[in-house]
């Protein structure tokens, strides 16, 4: 029995990766939930929006790298991030103008907007593959670790090592900053309040003189920022591949729905719920159990509940369980 080592192993393989992944999912789910709250449809193009923003960021990162600009220990991508956000904003505002606006004026049914977003998804997916290709791109540079396994072992003298990647640290810090800024904006500023008013009751908001087009425009801009940040953080942490971003749609939607569509707080809770369950169910617990349990009870096999390829299944099962018992999600979401 060695609880300290067990805890270190648990942090290294479960807690830290799950917190980083959860932050990325939460940022993605915030975007989905905002669109659902304000524009009242489920945006299937969100994964590809993330891919587009990330792609622009990567292109700028490469440009800066070729100029020899870097942030020292931090990845250059952070410097390129604002440009990625701007590019993504431009794309989303353009799509809204040429595609979504027409259906909004027609007051089309939400399901029509969902199908329209499928079309947008195809186009964005094609665009990203067209510009950067369908392959894996790694663009992380700078220092790889905040704490590496060896320094940790030397520092503490423990048998088990603990590594914190720079990208994981950056993910969590960025996510906290972005979420704090978002909540401050939604709750404290006039524009944010008008957005929430519009989301709660469209007619009443119109009556009190809120300009719907402005609300929609600002929503798209915030969504672009959130999607790009989420995408870049995910890409830094793992790697960038257009198809993977398309597949992220499922855990992101699961997070948004588990939390309750339309509820920003729910999106964050949902993101972490999904991330922790995915990591915990697909992690081989042999090592942790080997430390935490007395020797006679230690498992022989890997003690892995499901193979890692079933991580989609996990997010989906959580989604179903929550929907069956709380049909509008943990933080009562809305339904159109």
């Amino acid at each position, binding site marked *: 029995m060695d609880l300290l080592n067990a805890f270190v192993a648990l942090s290294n393989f479960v807690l830290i990766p799950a917190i980083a992944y959860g932050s990325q999912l939460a940022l993605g789910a915030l975007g989905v939930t905002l669109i659902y709250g304000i524009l009242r*449809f*489920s945006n*299937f193009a969100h994964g590809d929006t993330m891919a587009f923003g990330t792609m622009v960021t990567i292109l700028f990162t490469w440009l800066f790298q070729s100029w020899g600009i870097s942030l020292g220990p931090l990845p250059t991508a952070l410097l390129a991030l604002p440009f990625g956000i701007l590019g993504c904003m431009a794309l989303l505002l353009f799509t809204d103008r040429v*595609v979504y606006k*027409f259906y909004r004026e027609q007051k089309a049914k*939400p*399901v*029509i907007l*969902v*199908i*329209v977003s*499928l*079309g*947008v*998804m*195809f*186009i*964005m*997916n*094609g*665009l990203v*593959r*067209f*510009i950067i*290709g*369908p392959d894996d791109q790694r663009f992380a540079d700078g220092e790889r670790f905040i704490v590496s396994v060896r320094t940790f072992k030397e520092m503490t003298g423990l048998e088990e090592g603990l590594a914190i990647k720079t990208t994981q640290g950056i993910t969590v810090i960025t996510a906290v900053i972005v979420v704090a800024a978002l909540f401050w904006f939604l709750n404290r500023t006039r524009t944010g309040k008008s957005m929430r008013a519009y989301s709660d009751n469209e007619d009443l908001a119109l009556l009190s003189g809120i300009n719907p087009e402005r609300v929609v425009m600002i929503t798209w801009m915030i969504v672009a920022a959130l999607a790009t940040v989420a995408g870049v953080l995910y890409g830094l942490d793992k790697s960038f591949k257009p*198809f993977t971003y*398309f*597949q992220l*749609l*499922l855990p992101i*939607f*699961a997070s948004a*729905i588990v939390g309750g*569509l339309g509820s920003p707080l729910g999106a964050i809770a949902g993101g972490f719920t999904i991330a922790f369950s995915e990591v915990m169910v697909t992690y081989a617990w042999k090592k942790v159990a080997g430390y935490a349990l007395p020797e006679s009870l230690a498992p022989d*096999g890997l003690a892995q*509940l499901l*193979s890692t*390829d*079933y991580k*989609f*299944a996990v*997010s*989906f099962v959580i*989604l*179903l369980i929550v*929907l*069956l018992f709380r*049909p509008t999600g943990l933080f009562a979401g809305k*339904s159109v």
Partner: protein
Amino acid sequence: MNETVKNTALFALVAVLIIGTGFLQSWNSALFILNFGLISAIMALGVNLQWGFAGLFNVGIMGFVALGGLATVLVSMPPTTDAWAAGGGGVIVALLMGAATIVVTALVIKRMPAGWLRTVIVLALLIGGFFVYRWLFDPAVARIEAVNPASTGYLGGINPGGAAWGWMTLVAWPVGGLLAAGVAWIIGKTALGLRSDYLAIATLGIAEIIIAVMKNEDWLSRGVKNVIGLPRPAPYEIELQSDPAFLERAASLGMDPVTASTIWVKLVYAGLFAVVLVILFVLAQRALHSPWGRMMRAIRDNENASEAMGKDVTARHLQVFILGSAICGIAGAMMTTLDGQLTPGTYQPLRFTFLIWVMVIVGGSGNNLGAVLGGFLIWFLWVQVEPMGLLLMQAITSGMTDGSPLKVHLIESAAHMRLLTMGLVLLLVLRFSPRGLIPER
């Protein structure tokens, strides 16, 4: 009359496009487009049943198509006797045990009053059942996968005749439909109560899970190692090329034997697929114009009113969900037959779910003829956009110097034009002709 002329013209256009491919490129590629067009049309019929008739937003088509493919393997491949001897019984016992756990849990939830005791019992049953299941399942699977892993390592199918009994593959088509219908029943029972967006996400997730299972459960269908060389209902090209009667006929038509044999095989498939398409189309058409079809559309247009008229909305939804999924399963089995192999790694939602949706929307949702037209037309585009995009890119870049990075990049990226084009077609149709090319009557 006007409408008939228009529809005939649209179908004639598709025929011209396919025949034109035959003259301009090759008859092999024309028949390739025709065969996959027939399959796509069947898938589009299935989706049209769900979306056009009943307004169910199912984006899990890929899963049902894959299940059809799985059925082809399970029916048409010869059984691996060694693997069955090694662990077949073990796997079946484990699966029965897993199913029993779920049934008992469902019974407990249904029969016991709600309370902490029920929660505890349900959790204990599920967790205990899972570990017992894995304890039974894992060693059996390990034994099966150890049997000659390079070529088998799975249980195989039920076809005792092997490659000689190619007609067993035809049996696999309805079985594929049944398998898809069975899974659709389970999904429908749990997910159809959800609202439209939630149902969409749920089906999207289920499709991914089905693919994940097929990729990982090597004992079932070899996973990503693929099953190749499925027995086929059509003759083999090699056999035709050594058949004197066939050679004589090919010579009398003035064709060389290799081309003649590949074209003949494709024609046989086209005939088989066309029969299935016609049968399903007639059935779908009869369903649409029956009282049942009118009820479905009434439910689609106003659920509350139909419920007030005493229609069981949930049961009808479940029914049409199962029927539509079964059609997709049949199409999936046919596609795997045509490919001659099952490759779970190639199932991608863009190609097998969203492309089918484009077909239905472009063709005209709620109209079977429209769905069939959309299937052919969009499949033709999907195949032909790539060479067309390449031509376009070559035209654009013709002014640039050879070997400039931009030119290389543009020409290499032409392959990705098809996704862009599909999105563009979908958006244009939705905007300017939202009811599709052949609208619902």
